[in-house]
Protein backbone atom coordinates (compact mmCIF):
# COMPACT_ATOMS: atom_id res chain seq x y z
CA UNK A 1 0.00 0.00 0.00
CA UNK A 2 2.76 2.44 0.83
CA UNK A 3 4.21 1.86 -2.63
CA UNK A 4 1.00 3.14 -4.13
CA UNK A 5 0.70 6.21 -1.99
CA UNK A 6 4.20 7.40 -2.47
CA UNK A 7 4.47 8.10 -6.16
CA UNK A 8 2.57 8.71 -9.34
CA UNK A 9 2.34 5.36 -11.11
CA UNK A 10 3.22 6.64 -14.57
CA UNK A 11 5.04 9.97 -14.13
CA UNK A 12 6.01 10.21 -17.80
CA UNK A 13 2.40 9.95 -19.04
CA UNK A 14 1.07 13.12 -20.64
CA UNK A 15 -2.52 12.79 -21.85
CA UNK A 16 -3.92 12.31 -18.36
CA UNK A 17 -1.22 13.76 -16.05
CA UNK A 18 -1.37 12.25 -12.60
CA UNK A 19 -1.53 14.14 -9.37
CA UNK A 20 1.93 14.97 -8.20
CA UNK A 21 4.03 18.04 -8.29
CA UNK A 22 2.04 21.13 -9.04
CA UNK A 23 3.00 22.87 -12.22
CA UNK A 24 4.46 26.31 -11.99
CA UNK A 25 1.73 28.83 -12.69
CA UNK A 26 1.34 32.59 -12.76
CA UNK A 27 0.73 32.71 -9.02
CA UNK A 28 4.09 31.03 -8.42
CA UNK A 29 5.75 33.54 -10.71
CA UNK A 30 4.07 36.44 -8.92
CA UNK A 31 5.04 35.08 -5.50
CA UNK A 32 8.60 34.67 -6.69
CA UNK A 33 8.97 38.21 -7.93
CA UNK A 34 7.15 39.79 -4.99
CA UNK A 35 9.49 38.31 -2.40
CA UNK A 36 12.08 41.03 -1.81
CA UNK A 37 15.67 39.94 -1.73
CA UNK A 38 14.99 36.37 -2.75
CA UNK A 39 17.92 35.18 -4.79
CA UNK A 40 17.52 32.82 -7.71
CA UNK A 41 17.79 29.31 -6.28
CA UNK A 42 20.73 27.34 -7.54
CA UNK A 43 19.97 24.12 -5.69
CA UNK A 44 16.91 22.17 -4.76
CA UNK A 45 16.21 18.79 -3.24
CA UNK A 46 13.70 16.09 -3.94
CA UNK A 47 12.92 13.67 -1.14
CA UNK A 48 12.03 10.17 -2.17
CA UNK A 49 10.75 7.97 0.60
CA UNK A 50 11.55 4.34 1.21
CA UNK A 51 8.81 1.77 0.81
CA UNK A 52 8.12 1.65 4.55
CA UNK A 53 7.55 5.40 4.78
CA UNK A 54 4.58 5.97 2.49
CA UNK A 55 2.57 7.47 5.37
CA UNK A 56 5.21 10.20 5.78
CA UNK A 57 4.64 11.80 2.37
CA UNK A 58 3.04 14.83 4.06
CA UNK A 59 6.17 15.29 6.15
CA UNK A 60 8.44 14.87 3.14
CA UNK A 61 6.51 17.52 1.22
CA UNK A 62 6.71 19.91 4.18
CA UNK A 63 10.44 19.32 4.75
CA UNK A 64 11.15 19.60 1.04
CA UNK A 65 9.44 22.99 0.89
CA UNK A 66 11.16 24.32 4.01
CA UNK A 67 14.63 23.08 3.13
CA UNK A 68 14.40 24.27 -0.47
CA UNK A 69 13.45 27.69 0.84
CA UNK A 70 16.57 27.96 3.00
CA UNK A 71 18.77 26.40 0.31
CA UNK A 72 17.74 29.33 -1.90
CA UNK A 73 19.43 31.80 0.46
CA UNK A 74 22.54 33.26 -1.10
CA UNK A 75 25.79 34.58 0.26
CA UNK A 76 25.19 37.28 2.93
CA UNK A 77 21.51 36.41 3.32
CA UNK A 78 21.47 37.99 6.81
CA UNK A 79 22.71 41.31 5.47
CA UNK A 80 26.18 40.53 6.79
CA UNK A 81 28.48 37.61 6.09
CA UNK A 82 26.17 34.62 6.38
CA UNK A 83 27.12 31.64 4.21
CA UNK A 84 24.64 29.74 2.04
CA UNK A 85 23.31 26.59 3.69
CA UNK A 86 25.61 23.68 2.90
CA UNK A 87 24.47 20.41 1.33
CA UNK A 88 25.90 18.61 4.37
CA UNK A 89 23.76 20.62 6.78
CA UNK A 90 20.65 20.15 4.64
CA UNK A 91 21.28 16.40 4.36
CA UNK A 92 21.72 15.94 8.12
CA UNK A 93 18.67 18.13 8.79
CA UNK A 94 16.44 15.96 6.64
CA UNK A 95 17.90 12.76 8.06
CA UNK A 96 17.24 13.98 11.60
CA UNK A 97 13.69 15.12 10.94
CA UNK A 98 12.82 11.69 9.58
CA UNK A 99 14.66 9.98 12.43
CA UNK A 100 12.87 12.03 15.10
CA UNK A 101 9.36 12.24 13.63
CA UNK A 102 6.69 9.66 12.97
CA UNK A 103 3.40 10.02 11.14
CA UNK A 104 1.74 11.73 14.13
CA UNK A 105 4.55 14.14 14.94
CA UNK A 106 4.43 17.88 15.02
CA UNK A 107 6.84 19.04 12.31
CA UNK A 108 9.67 21.32 13.44
CA UNK A 109 10.36 24.90 12.46
CA UNK A 110 13.44 25.45 10.28
CA UNK A 111 15.93 28.32 10.67
CA UNK A 112 19.09 29.00 8.66
CA UNK A 113 22.31 29.65 10.59
CA UNK A 114 24.98 32.14 9.48
CA UNK A 115 27.71 29.46 9.36
CA UNK A 116 25.81 27.55 6.63
CA UNK A 117 24.04 25.32 9.12
CA UNK A 118 20.39 24.83 10.05
CA UNK A 119 18.47 24.87 13.34
CA UNK A 120 15.25 22.92 13.79
CA UNK A 121 12.99 23.59 16.76
CA UNK A 122 9.87 22.30 18.46
CA UNK A 123 8.22 24.48 21.11
CA UNK A 124 5.09 23.50 23.02
CA UNK A 125 4.16 25.31 26.21
CA UNK A 126 7.43 25.88 28.01
CA UNK A 127 9.11 22.76 26.63
CA UNK A 128 11.54 23.04 23.75
CA UNK A 129 13.69 20.86 21.52
CA UNK A 130 16.38 22.74 19.62
CA UNK A 131 18.72 20.89 17.27
CA UNK A 132 21.60 22.81 15.78
CA UNK A 133 23.21 21.36 12.67
CA UNK A 134 26.44 23.12 11.76
CA UNK A 135 27.82 23.68 8.24
CA UNK A 136 29.68 20.34 8.31
CA UNK A 137 26.51 18.41 9.15
CA UNK A 138 27.35 17.73 12.81
CA UNK A 139 24.28 18.05 15.05
CA UNK A 140 23.73 18.92 18.69
CA UNK A 141 20.45 18.74 20.65
CA UNK A 142 19.32 20.88 23.55
CA UNK A 143 16.06 19.88 25.26
CA UNK A 144 14.52 21.92 28.05
CA UNK A 145 11.41 21.32 30.15
CA UNK A 146 8.67 23.70 31.28
CA UNK A 147 10.88 25.15 34.00
CA UNK A 148 13.77 25.73 31.62
CA UNK A 149 15.83 22.91 33.09
CA UNK A 150 18.05 21.10 30.58
CA UNK A 151 16.94 17.49 29.97
CA UNK A 152 19.18 16.61 27.04
CA UNK A 153 22.38 18.31 25.96
CA UNK A 154 24.23 16.03 23.57
CA UNK A 155 25.45 15.33 20.04
CA UNK A 156 22.97 13.72 17.64
CA UNK A 157 23.73 11.28 14.86
CA UNK A 158 20.87 10.33 12.49
CA UNK A 159 22.47 6.91 12.05
CA UNK A 160 22.95 6.17 15.77
CA UNK A 161 19.61 5.27 17.35
CA UNK A 162 20.91 5.45 20.95
CA UNK A 163 21.68 9.15 20.55
CA UNK A 164 18.21 9.78 19.11
CA UNK A 165 16.00 7.94 21.58
CA UNK A 166 15.75 10.62 24.33
CA UNK A 167 15.00 13.34 21.78
CA UNK A 168 12.51 11.14 19.91
CA UNK A 169 10.63 10.61 23.17
CA UNK A 170 10.38 14.35 23.83
CA UNK A 171 9.27 15.13 20.26
CA UNK A 172 6.56 12.48 20.62
CA UNK A 173 5.43 13.92 23.96
CA UNK A 174 5.39 17.48 22.58
CA UNK A 175 3.36 16.33 19.58
CA UNK A 176 0.75 14.68 21.79
CA UNK A 177 0.69 17.75 24.01
CA UNK A 178 0.21 20.06 21.00
CA UNK A 179 -2.51 17.81 19.57
CA UNK A 180 -4.41 17.78 22.84
CA UNK A 181 -4.18 21.57 23.09
CA UNK A 182 -2.50 21.59 26.47
Amino acid at each position, binding site marked *: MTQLLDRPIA*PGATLYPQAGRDRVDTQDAEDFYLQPGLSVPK*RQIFIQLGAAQGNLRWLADHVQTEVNAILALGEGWDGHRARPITDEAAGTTIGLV*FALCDDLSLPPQFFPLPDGGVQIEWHVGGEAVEVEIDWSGDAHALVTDDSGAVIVDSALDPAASESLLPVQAVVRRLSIRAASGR
Partner: protein
Amino acid sequence: MTSDENPGDPAHLPDFEDPPVVEVALGVQFRPIPRLRPVEMASLREQWRSEYPVVLDQPPLPPTIEQPTSGPRTTQLVFGPALQTRLWFLSEDQSSLVQIQHDRLTVNWRKLDGVPYPRYPAVRDMFDRSFDDVEEFVADRGFGPLEITQVEANYINRIDAADEGRGHLEEILRHWSSLAGHHLGDPEEARVAMVFRVPEIGTPPVRLYVECAPAQQVGQAPVLLLTLTVRGAPTTSDLGSALGFMDKAHAHIVHSFAELTTDAMHEHWRRNR
Protein backbone atom coordinates in the same frame (compact mmCIF):
# COMPACT_ATOMS: atom_id res chain seq x y z
CA MET B 1 0.71 -19.92 -21.18
CA THR B 2 2.58 -23.13 -20.37
CA SER B 3 5.72 -23.19 -18.29
CA ASP B 4 8.07 -23.92 -21.21
CA GLU B 5 6.90 -20.93 -23.23
CA ASN B 6 8.92 -17.74 -23.20
CA PRO B 7 6.62 -15.06 -21.79
CA GLY B 8 8.40 -12.44 -23.86
CA ASP B 9 8.01 -14.20 -27.19
CA PRO B 10 5.66 -11.99 -29.26
CA ALA B 11 4.05 -15.11 -30.74
CA HIS B 12 2.81 -16.05 -27.27
CA LEU B 13 1.61 -12.61 -26.21
CA PRO B 14 -2.10 -11.87 -26.09
CA ASP B 15 -3.07 -9.74 -29.06
CA PHE B 16 -5.98 -7.34 -29.55
CA GLU B 17 -7.11 -5.88 -32.85
CA ASP B 18 -8.53 -2.77 -31.26
CA PRO B 19 -6.72 -2.34 -27.91
CA PRO B 20 -7.82 0.56 -25.67
CA VAL B 21 -4.27 1.88 -25.29
CA VAL B 22 -4.08 5.66 -25.62
CA GLU B 23 -0.51 6.27 -24.49
CA VAL B 24 2.72 4.30 -24.23
CA ALA B 25 5.76 5.77 -22.48
CA LEU B 26 9.11 3.99 -22.53
CA GLY B 27 11.86 5.67 -20.60
CA VAL B 28 15.00 5.57 -18.52
CA GLN B 29 16.43 7.55 -15.66
CA PHE B 30 20.16 8.05 -15.68
CA ARG B 31 22.81 9.59 -13.43
CA PRO B 32 22.18 13.34 -13.51
CA ILE B 33 24.02 15.33 -16.16
CA PRO B 34 23.66 18.92 -14.91
CA ARG B 35 24.87 20.36 -18.22
CA LEU B 36 22.07 18.67 -20.15
CA ARG B 37 20.08 21.89 -20.24
CA PRO B 38 17.87 23.44 -22.92
CA VAL B 39 20.50 25.99 -23.88
CA GLU B 40 23.02 23.20 -24.46
CA MET B 41 20.55 21.21 -26.53
CA ALA B 42 20.26 23.69 -29.38
CA SER B 43 22.05 21.39 -31.82
CA LEU B 44 19.86 18.45 -30.80
CA ARG B 45 16.84 20.61 -31.58
CA GLU B 46 18.27 21.22 -35.03
CA GLN B 47 19.00 17.53 -35.56
CA TRP B 48 15.43 16.57 -34.62
CA ARG B 49 13.65 19.53 -36.22
CA SER B 50 12.22 17.58 -39.18
CA GLU B 51 10.91 14.73 -37.03
CA TYR B 52 9.97 16.78 -33.94
CA PRO B 53 9.30 20.37 -35.03
CA VAL B 54 7.44 21.42 -31.88
CA VAL B 55 9.47 22.05 -28.70
CA LEU B 56 7.88 22.85 -25.34
CA ASP B 57 9.19 23.46 -21.81
CA GLN B 58 7.70 21.44 -18.97
CA PRO B 59 8.53 21.24 -15.26
CA PRO B 60 11.00 18.42 -14.52
CA LEU B 61 9.86 15.12 -13.06
CA PRO B 62 11.36 14.13 -9.72
CA PRO B 63 13.43 10.93 -9.55
CA THR B 64 11.44 7.75 -8.96
CA ILE B 65 13.61 4.87 -7.81
CA GLU B 66 12.31 1.44 -6.83
CA GLN B 67 13.45 0.61 -3.31
CA PRO B 68 13.37 -2.54 -1.18
CA THR B 69 10.22 -3.02 0.91
CA SER B 70 12.05 -4.25 4.00
CA GLY B 71 15.17 -3.00 5.70
CA PRO B 72 15.96 0.24 7.44
CA ARG B 73 13.93 3.37 6.87
CA THR B 74 15.55 5.06 3.92
CA THR B 75 15.14 8.53 2.61
CA GLN B 76 16.79 9.35 -0.67
CA LEU B 77 17.93 12.90 -1.13
CA VAL B 78 18.69 14.23 -4.54
CA PHE B 79 20.52 17.54 -4.74
CA GLY B 80 20.32 19.09 -8.13
CA PRO B 81 20.47 22.41 -9.87
CA ALA B 82 17.19 24.28 -9.63
CA LEU B 83 15.31 25.75 -12.55
CA GLN B 84 15.94 22.65 -14.64
CA THR B 85 13.27 22.01 -17.20
CA ARG B 86 12.06 19.02 -19.13
CA LEU B 87 12.01 19.55 -22.89
CA TRP B 88 9.26 18.04 -25.01
CA PHE B 89 10.09 17.35 -28.65
CA LEU B 90 6.79 16.73 -30.44
CA SER B 91 6.03 15.43 -33.92
CA GLU B 92 3.89 17.59 -36.21
CA ASP B 93 0.71 15.68 -35.25
CA GLN B 94 1.89 15.60 -31.58
CA SER B 95 1.35 11.82 -31.35
CA SER B 96 5.09 11.15 -30.94
CA LEU B 97 6.95 12.81 -28.12
CA VAL B 98 10.50 12.69 -26.76
CA GLN B 99 10.96 14.04 -23.22
CA ILE B 100 14.43 14.97 -21.96
CA GLN B 101 15.63 16.39 -18.68
CA HIS B 102 18.97 16.25 -16.92
CA ASP B 103 18.32 12.73 -15.58
CA ARG B 104 15.56 11.25 -17.77
CA LEU B 105 14.77 10.29 -21.34
CA THR B 106 11.25 9.11 -22.16
CA VAL B 107 9.52 8.57 -25.48
CA ASN B 108 5.73 8.58 -25.75
CA TRP B 109 3.27 7.49 -28.35
CA ARG B 110 -0.08 9.21 -27.83
CA LYS B 111 -3.38 8.36 -29.47
CA LEU B 112 -4.59 11.60 -30.99
CA ASP B 113 -7.29 11.98 -33.64
CA GLY B 114 -7.78 8.25 -33.96
CA VAL B 115 -4.21 7.41 -35.01
CA PRO B 116 -3.95 3.61 -34.57
CA TYR B 117 -1.51 2.16 -32.05
CA PRO B 118 1.70 1.49 -33.99
CA ARG B 119 2.54 -1.43 -31.64
CA TYR B 120 5.38 -1.89 -29.17
CA PRO B 121 8.26 -2.49 -31.65
CA ALA B 122 7.67 0.93 -33.24
CA VAL B 123 7.76 2.75 -29.87
CA ARG B 124 10.80 0.71 -28.79
CA ASP B 125 12.55 1.68 -32.00
CA MET B 126 11.72 5.33 -31.34
CA PHE B 127 13.27 5.04 -27.88
CA ASP B 128 16.33 3.23 -29.27
CA ARG B 129 16.98 5.96 -31.87
CA SER B 130 16.38 8.80 -29.42
CA PHE B 131 18.72 7.29 -26.85
CA ASP B 132 21.45 6.82 -29.48
CA ASP B 133 21.13 10.47 -30.48
CA VAL B 134 21.28 11.73 -26.90
CA GLU B 135 24.15 9.41 -26.00
CA GLU B 136 26.15 10.66 -28.98
CA PHE B 137 25.24 14.24 -28.14
CA VAL B 138 26.47 14.07 -24.53
CA ALA B 139 29.59 12.10 -25.53
CA ASP B 140 30.53 14.65 -28.22
CA ARG B 141 30.36 17.45 -25.68
CA GLY B 142 32.20 15.60 -22.96
CA PHE B 143 29.21 15.68 -20.61
CA GLY B 144 29.95 12.12 -19.51
CA PRO B 145 28.32 8.75 -20.20
CA LEU B 146 24.63 8.03 -19.89
CA GLU B 147 24.55 5.59 -17.00
CA ILE B 148 21.05 4.17 -16.78
CA THR B 149 19.73 3.65 -13.25
CA GLN B 150 16.04 2.88 -13.80
CA VAL B 151 13.96 1.64 -16.72
CA GLU B 152 10.24 2.16 -17.05
CA ALA B 153 7.46 1.00 -19.38
CA ASN B 154 4.02 2.59 -19.05
CA TYR B 155 0.80 1.60 -20.80
CA ILE B 156 -2.26 3.79 -20.33
CA ASN B 157 -5.56 2.33 -21.50
CA ARG B 158 -8.70 4.43 -21.77
CA ILE B 159 -12.02 2.72 -21.16
CA ASP B 160 -15.12 4.74 -21.90
CA ALA B 161 -17.48 4.62 -18.96
CA ALA B 162 -20.89 6.21 -18.68
CA ASP B 163 -21.71 8.09 -15.47
CA GLU B 164 -23.12 4.98 -13.84
CA GLY B 165 -20.26 2.78 -15.09
CA ARG B 166 -17.37 4.28 -13.17
CA GLY B 167 -18.35 2.33 -10.07
CA HIS B 168 -18.83 -0.93 -11.95
CA LEU B 169 -15.28 -2.19 -12.19
CA GLU B 170 -16.56 -5.77 -12.35
CA GLU B 171 -17.41 -5.12 -16.00
CA ILE B 172 -13.72 -4.43 -16.68
CA LEU B 173 -11.70 -6.30 -14.07
CA ARG B 174 -12.03 -10.08 -13.97
CA HIS B 175 -11.39 -10.38 -10.24
CA TRP B 176 -13.56 -7.52 -9.03
CA SER B 177 -16.96 -8.36 -7.55
CA SER B 178 -20.07 -6.26 -7.83
CA LEU B 179 -20.86 -4.21 -4.72
CA ALA B 180 -24.60 -4.27 -5.37
CA GLY B 181 -25.11 -5.84 -1.91
CA HIS B 182 -23.85 -2.69 -0.22
CA HIS B 183 -26.65 -0.86 1.65
CA LEU B 184 -25.92 2.30 -0.38
CA GLY B 185 -25.94 0.43 -3.67
CA ASP B 186 -23.14 0.61 -6.19
CA PRO B 187 -20.33 3.11 -5.58
CA GLU B 188 -20.47 6.28 -7.62
CA GLU B 189 -16.81 5.80 -8.49
CA ALA B 190 -14.21 3.15 -7.73
CA ARG B 191 -10.45 2.96 -7.89
CA VAL B 192 -8.26 -0.15 -7.69
CA ALA B 193 -4.49 -0.26 -7.38
CA MET B 194 -2.11 -3.21 -7.16
CA VAL B 195 1.63 -3.75 -6.95
CA PHE B 196 3.33 -6.96 -8.08
CA ARG B 197 6.97 -7.94 -7.66
CA VAL B 198 8.43 -8.88 -11.06
CA PRO B 199 11.13 -11.57 -10.89
CA GLU B 200 13.86 -12.28 -13.41
CA ILE B 201 14.12 -8.78 -14.85
CA GLY B 202 17.01 -6.45 -14.14
CA THR B 203 18.19 -5.93 -10.58
CA PRO B 204 15.57 -6.36 -7.83
CA PRO B 205 13.33 -4.80 -6.81
CA VAL B 206 11.35 -4.53 -10.03
CA ARG B 207 7.64 -3.88 -9.71
CA LEU B 208 4.50 -3.89 -11.82
CA TYR B 209 2.01 -1.20 -10.80
CA VAL B 210 -1.60 -1.52 -11.95
CA GLU B 211 -4.24 1.11 -11.37
CA CYS B 212 -7.80 1.41 -12.59
CA ALA B 213 -9.13 4.86 -11.79
CA PRO B 214 -11.57 7.49 -13.03
CA ALA B 215 -10.13 10.37 -15.06
CA GLN B 216 -11.36 13.24 -17.16
CA GLN B 217 -9.84 15.64 -19.64
CA VAL B 218 -11.13 19.20 -19.79
CA GLY B 219 -14.26 19.35 -21.90
CA GLN B 220 -14.42 15.59 -22.42
CA ALA B 221 -16.50 12.77 -20.97
CA PRO B 222 -15.21 10.98 -17.88
CA VAL B 223 -13.38 7.72 -18.52
CA LEU B 224 -11.64 4.94 -16.63
CA LEU B 225 -7.90 4.67 -17.06
CA LEU B 226 -6.24 1.29 -16.67
CA THR B 227 -2.54 2.06 -16.20
CA LEU B 228 0.17 -0.59 -16.11
CA THR B 229 3.77 0.35 -15.30
CA VAL B 230 6.88 -1.77 -14.81
CA ARG B 231 9.84 -0.01 -13.23
CA GLY B 232 13.20 -1.06 -11.83
CA ALA B 233 16.95 -1.08 -12.30
CA PRO B 234 18.46 -2.79 -15.34
CA THR B 235 21.14 -5.45 -14.89
CA THR B 236 23.81 -3.11 -16.27
CA SER B 237 23.70 0.61 -17.01
CA ASP B 238 23.88 0.39 -20.83
CA LEU B 239 21.24 0.66 -23.56
CA GLY B 240 21.22 -3.05 -24.41
CA SER B 241 20.33 -3.96 -20.86
CA ALA B 242 17.60 -1.29 -20.78
CA LEU B 243 16.05 -2.54 -24.03
CA GLY B 244 16.10 -6.13 -22.74
CA PHE B 245 14.37 -4.89 -19.58
CA MET B 246 11.75 -3.06 -21.64
CA ASP B 247 11.02 -6.14 -23.77
CA LYS B 248 10.34 -8.26 -20.69
CA ALA B 249 8.41 -5.44 -19.02
CA HIS B 250 6.23 -5.11 -22.12
CA ALA B 251 5.50 -8.86 -22.09
CA HIS B 252 4.50 -8.76 -18.41
CA ILE B 253 2.27 -5.74 -19.04
CA VAL B 254 0.48 -7.42 -21.96
CA HIS B 255 -0.01 -10.66 -20.04
CA SER B 256 -1.27 -8.78 -16.99
CA PHE B 257 -3.65 -6.70 -19.04
CA ALA B 258 -5.18 -9.86 -20.53
CA GLU B 259 -5.27 -11.67 -17.19
CA LEU B 260 -6.86 -8.80 -15.29
CA THR B 261 -9.58 -7.80 -17.76
CA THR B 262 -12.85 -9.61 -18.48
CA ASP B 263 -13.74 -11.78 -21.48
CA ALA B 264 -16.51 -9.34 -22.37
CA MET B 265 -13.99 -6.53 -22.67
CA HIS B 266 -11.67 -8.79 -24.69
CA GLU B 267 -14.51 -9.31 -27.12
CA HIS B 268 -15.05 -5.56 -27.29
CA TRP B 269 -11.34 -5.02 -27.99
CA ARG B 270 -11.37 -7.93 -30.50
CA ARG B 271 -8.84 -10.29 -28.97
CA ASN B 272 -7.06 -12.42 -31.57
CA ARG B 273 -5.16 -14.74 -29.24
